[in-house]
Every structure is written in structure tokens, then in C-alpha cells.
């Protein structure tokens, strides 16, 4: 079990790297990360479904300027991992895992902000180095920023996976039947909520005036 959690934590850290730090190939998006983790844990269906829900409901969460969006990769990887590791194939348990993973992803945003604040210190170290003729600090500083990110993210993933996993298992056992039915319903309702949000996002389409944004 520990090996699986370590592998998932490292995988999650590398996927999160794609959000801003390297490439932006979109492997960090829930629609890819969810099925990937689901496939590794033998339940691609749950992975895809949770990934699809997160992708649509947080369709506008993108890093613009100095805004730091919530880490959707963490939300997806945690929820898919918990549900596939502990209650494989259960729809209500999967939605419950997602409901637990959301606050953890918001908590990770604070860790991410702290990490970016530390990057400022590395930046000043590089600047001083250039003034002293130590140009190698540009590459060393940049790579160390990447390595620190991966280490930080992997550790946080691991801690959240263990802690959140314990909370998840212990709470899942005591879920009242009414809430179980609610989570089962939510499995089908949440994507519909997502469709509505995507439609809202697409409403400024040319040629469809009644769908256009008012400020245009």
C-alpha cells in the first residue's frame, strides 16, 4: 500500500508540474489525470467520471497573471486514488471522495503560494550571482526551483493521501443511507451541473446574440 501511495504521490507531483512550472501540455488537466490514475489503479471508469466532473465544474480555473487557481490535479488525483484504493467501483463512495478532496486542494493552494514566495528568494540569489559573474546560477536556480516544487508537491500529496484517506475511510463507513443515495444521485447530476457551467462559459458566441455577454 505504501509503495502505491508513494508512486501516486510522485506521479501527482509530476502532473502538477505541468500547471505552470513546465510545458503546459495539459497532462495536469482532470480529464487526463483522472483516467490515468484510474487506469493505474484498475478503475478507469471512476477516474474518467471524476475527472470529467472536475474539468467541467472548474472550467475557468486557469493561471492568469498573479492569480493562483486551485490545484485541480490534486483534487482529481486524491479523489480517484481514495475511491479506487478503498471502495473500487462504488459511485457514491467516489463522489464522497471528491467532496473530501476539494478542501485538500484548496489547502494545497496555500502551500503553492508559499512555494512561489520562496521562488522570489531564489530569484534574488540568481540576480546576485549574475552581478558577481556567476552566470551558472541561472540554470542552477531554475532547476532547483523545479526540484523543490516536485519534492514539495510529492510530500504534500503523500501526507494528504494518508491523512485524507484515513478521514475518508472512517467517515465513509458511517455515511447515513440518505446521504449514500444523495451521492449516488450526484454521480449523474454533477456532470449536468458541469454542462451548464460550460454553456455559461461559451455564451459569448458570434451569431447567437441572445447568448452574448451583456458587456460586449
Amino acid at each position, binding site marked *: 500500500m505504501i509503495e502505491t501511495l508513494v508512486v501516486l504521490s510522485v506521479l501527482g507531483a509530476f502532473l502538477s508540474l505541468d500547471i505552470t*512550472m*513546465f510545458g*503546459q501540455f*495539459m*497532462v495536469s*488537466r482532470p*480529464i487526463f489525470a483522472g*483516467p490515468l490514475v484510474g*487506469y493505474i489503479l484498475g478503475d*478507469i*471508469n471512476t477516474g*474518467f467520471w471524476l*475527472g470529467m466532473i472536475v*474539468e*467541467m*465544474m472548474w472550467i475557468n480555473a*486557469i493561471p*492568469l*497573471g*498573479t492569480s493562483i487557481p*486551485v490545484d485541480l490535479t490534486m483534487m482529481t488525483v486524491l479523489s480517484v486514488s481514495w475511491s479506487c484504493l478503498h471502495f473500487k467501483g462504488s459511485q457514491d463512495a467516489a463522489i464522497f471522495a471528491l*467532496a473530501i478532496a*476539494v478542501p485538500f486542494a484548496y489547502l494545497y493552494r496555500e502551500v503553492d503560494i508559499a512555494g*512561489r*514566495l520562496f*521562488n*522570489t528568494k531564489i*530569484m534574488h540569489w*540568481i540576480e546576485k550571482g549574475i*552581478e558577481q*559573474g556567476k*552566470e551558472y546560477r*541561472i*540554470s542552477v536556480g*531554475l532547476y532547483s*526551483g523545479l526540484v523543490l516544487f516536485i519534492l514539495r508537491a510529492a510530500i504534500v500529496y503523500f501526507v494528504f493521501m494518508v491523512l485524507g484517506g484515513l478521514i475518508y475511510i472512517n467517515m465513509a463507513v458511517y455515511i447515513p443511507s*440518505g446521504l449514500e*443515495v*444523495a*451521492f*449516488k*444521485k*450526484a454521480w*449523474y*447530476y*454533477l*456532470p*449536468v*451541473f*458541469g*454542462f*451548464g*457551467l460550460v*454553456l*455559461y*462559459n*461559451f455564451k*459569448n*458566441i458570434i*451569431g447567437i446574440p441572445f447568448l452574448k455577454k451583456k458587456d460586449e
Partner: protein
Amino acid sequence: MNNSINAKLFIRTFFVQSLWNFERLQNIGFLYVLYPVLKKLYPDKNKRKEVLLRHIGFFNTNPYMANIVFAMIINAEREIASGRSKNTKKPEILKSVISGPIAAIGDSFFWGTWRPVTSFVAILLSILAINMFDADYLWVAPIAFIFLYNVVHILFRYWILFISFRLNEQMIKLVAKFELTYIGDIVRLIGLAAIVATLYFYFDLFGFNPAVNIGVYDYSIPEIGIFGIILLFSFLFGKMRPVIMFYCAILFSFVIGYLGL
């Protein structure tokens, strides 16, 4: 510039945000991308130090569109290094003037249009897969998303970098003429068609479950009616924060589940 420097330059463009910080945002990434070129243009270490310090200031743009800035700055530095221009402030001015407008174009097209549309095409494919093959081919969706997105993204990054070298300041006119926003509208229409098709297949697949009795005499609402209410609600309250919407959806499911019991 030889092929090896060109290849290095292109690969390094993927690191533009690697040391993103709150003070000067992408400045170290910017320096890292330009470093091999500046090393070749300024073999003298003292001169190079001056240039590197000139470029360590604030830099922020869309990471895909940044390639235009890199090419134009390199062209300006080439002129300065060869002595054809004495205006050492030009690269700095270019950087601050171009970064904002091209970031707006890139953000709107790639983040606001291309990514949601490709992800939605993938969702459509998966709903179709569930409809026709009972989830056996679900893996197609994420692979289709990554392939579709990156074919355009990587080719665009490559093309925009090397064409900007040739066109230099004319590139701004080309970007304006190219009208990514117009292409964005067309892509969004394709996205809208994908959404409508997905909705049809989704409602067809899951919307005709037995009716939910809402507990008022014999009155009952079919599942598809509930789907319609949810769709209208989330569309009308689309401005709501996603996290609030998410927990509202759970609460709504609880109410429906409770009334349906």
C-alpha cells in the same frame, strides 16, 4: 544562429514559467530561454553581465505567445551586439509594449477556447464510447484530448518562434491580421456543437430513469426533468464560485434523494 542553438532555444521556451515568483513573475524563465543566444552574441563576460542584468526585470505574458517576445528581443540584441543599433533600451521597451496585448490574445484563445473545446470533444467521445461500447473504449477520450490540444499547441509554439525571427516587428501586424479571436469564435462554435451533442447523448443515456416522486400526492418528476432544472440553474448561476456550486449540487442531490425515497 545554428541549428543546435535553435533547438536549445525552442526546448527552453517550455521552461519560461519554471521559477515563477510574485515579484517579477517569469523573469528567470525569460533569462534562461535567452541565455544560450546571449552567450553567443556577447562572448565578453563583462558585456554579457550588463545584458543579463538588463533582462532580469519584470516579465509576464502567455507562455505560448512568449515566443514572439523572445524572437523580437533576440533580433534587437543581435542589432545591438553587431553595432548596427546603439539603442540599448529597445529590448526593454519591446518587452513591456508587446507582452500585455499578446498575452490577452493567447489567454483568450488557448486558455479560454482551445482547452475547453478540446476537453469537451474528449468528453463527447467518451459519452459516445459509453453509449456504444459500454465504457470499453473510455481510454480514447484522454488520449484524444492530449493529442488534439498538443498538435495545435506545439506546432503553434514552434511556428510562432521561428516566423517571428524572420518577420520581427511585422509579426505584430500578422498576429492582429491573423485574428485569433475570430478563429476562437469558430472553434467556440465547434465546441458548442460538441456540447449540444454530448447533452443529447448524456440525456439519452441517463435521463430516462424511473420518475422521482417528490412527495406531494402522486406528483412525480421524471429524471430528465430534473436534468433540465439542473442545467438551467447552473447556466443561470454560472458566475457562482465553482466550489459553492459543487456543494450546492451535493445538497441538491440530497434533497432529491430524500424526496425520492
